[in-house]
């Protein structure tokens, strides 16, 4: 457990730094789609919920897990869908190949 914990903290730290460096560079133009995209990515919590439902350790965990999967899945689907729609709207008048 001890080494797992330290590993996990290292991963968290590195991922947070990558997040800072990557997101700092994102143009304010795209802040709204950025937020809806990170929302969809954050719904990766669905993986934990899926395991909880599938393992069926108790009725309680099955019910809560199922609700959790529903909530997270709607974020995945809705989040990617609206990000995609928003980005399609960003057009340039410059005659440049994307």
């Amino acid at each position, binding site marked *: *457990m001890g080494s797992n914990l330290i590993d*996990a903290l290292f991963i*968290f730290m590195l991922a*947070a730094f*990558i*997040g800072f460096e*990557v*997101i700092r*560079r994102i*143009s*304010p133009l795209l*802040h*709204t*789609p950025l*937020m809806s995209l*990170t*929302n*969809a*990515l*954050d719904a*990766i*919590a*669905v*993986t*934990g919920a*899926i*395991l*909880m*439902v*599938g*393992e069926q350790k*108790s009725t309680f*965990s099955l019910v*809560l*897990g*199922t*609700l*959790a*999967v*529903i*909530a*997270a*899945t*709607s*974020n*995945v*689907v*809705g989040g*990617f*869908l*609206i*990000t995609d*729609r*928003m*980005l399609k*709207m*960003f*057009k*340039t008048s410059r005659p440049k190949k*994307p």
Partner: protein
Amino acid sequence: MTNFPANEQVIQVIYLVASALFILALKWMNSPVTAQRGVWAGEIGMVLAIGGTLLNQGIVDYKWIAIALVLGTIIGIPLGLVQMTAVPQRTALSHAFGAFCVTLVGIADFYLRTPNIPRFVMTVLSLEVILGSLTFTGSLMAAGKLQEVLPQRPLTYKGQNLVNLTLLAVAIVLAAYLVLHPGATLLFPFIVGIPLVFGVLMVIPIGGADMPTVISLLNSYAGLSAAAMGFVLDSKLLIIAGALDGSSGFILSVIMSKAMNRSFTNILFGAFGKVQISATNEAEVKPVRSATAEEAAAILAAANTVVVVPGYGMAIAQAQHKVRELYDALTRRGVDVRFAIHPVAGRMPGHMNVLLAEANIPYERLIEMDDINEEFPQTDVALVIGANDVTNPAARTDSASPIYGMPILAVDKARTVMVIKRSMSPGFAGIDNPLYYLDKTLMLFGDAKSFVNDIVHELAGGGRN
């Protein structure tokens, strides 16, 4: 069980690829040219991660997983198809859903494993449910205010911050006690329940103009709660995704707070929404100059450079498509038209950009505050549509003003200023705007959409005669 380790390794490799795709997805978001690719990377990563999870041999039954995935998709599709003006409340709602998921899994985890939960796991589990439940109710409140189901007016009372912080402190102390005394499981419902109340109280004092900061902050909390869930479940993928989301929300909160001149501790403790000040001290009526659509059209047509300053009023009036017609009409006449975007214009980060992009205005015409401010002195006409506080010169000059120090768009430096506004009533924050009384300012009284429409008509008529 013999092939279990191999299977587990396959799943971990899939998760590794998914994590890399998530980072690439964010990296590609830095430009509108590559952003679409970023969404695809995110989608592929998500499908891989869910697919990999389904391979897990601990799963004994797929029926409920399938039902939940289908139901979630059915709910998710309409949430992905909302109007662009409804994007702020949709975003708040999805923060609530994300936090709901994390909190439920945390609660179920607790009751499955108690009282044999190692101290560290219990610590992060507490963090998970505290952040999760306050984000859940806080985001629901924010969504309700944005959808105008709840009153948008900030509700404040004496000692509000003290009550809120005390509640949060009680939840943390109870959690700490439970970490040290794993047998005290009766405390757990309070560790979930108190933050639920805190989330509501935290957002009650928030007014509409502060929503961009609050939404960003809730975004960050949602990410951090997911990362905490990753620690509990020992899932590296979740830790990475949660950390990325947490830092994204954090950066946006910092940008928003700087754009409103709020200190950082101010955000961390959720103690925003303090701008409302009684505007009763304006007794005298100061003279303003107003103009008709015809006069406005003539001035715009004679200009070489026009900078449009959109605000939330444009969003409410759904005027962005009319603004696009104005843009087209002026551009055809050879007028250089650009848009000045204040970071907190609207109700969430980047809100104005999305609305104007929806109206097909090319994105290189949307200019950030710092870049456009240098150009206002060379601008013939600044046309303010539904923006107020972000153009208020008192933020620069009047140290008694509640928004003193807030970075603003320097529209008062333009040669002529035109402001489309319903009436002279002060804006949401109740702060008077000296911009309206300048000699070079013309007030265009009316609804943003119909007034812009009238200007477009005048321009069209003038062109043909």
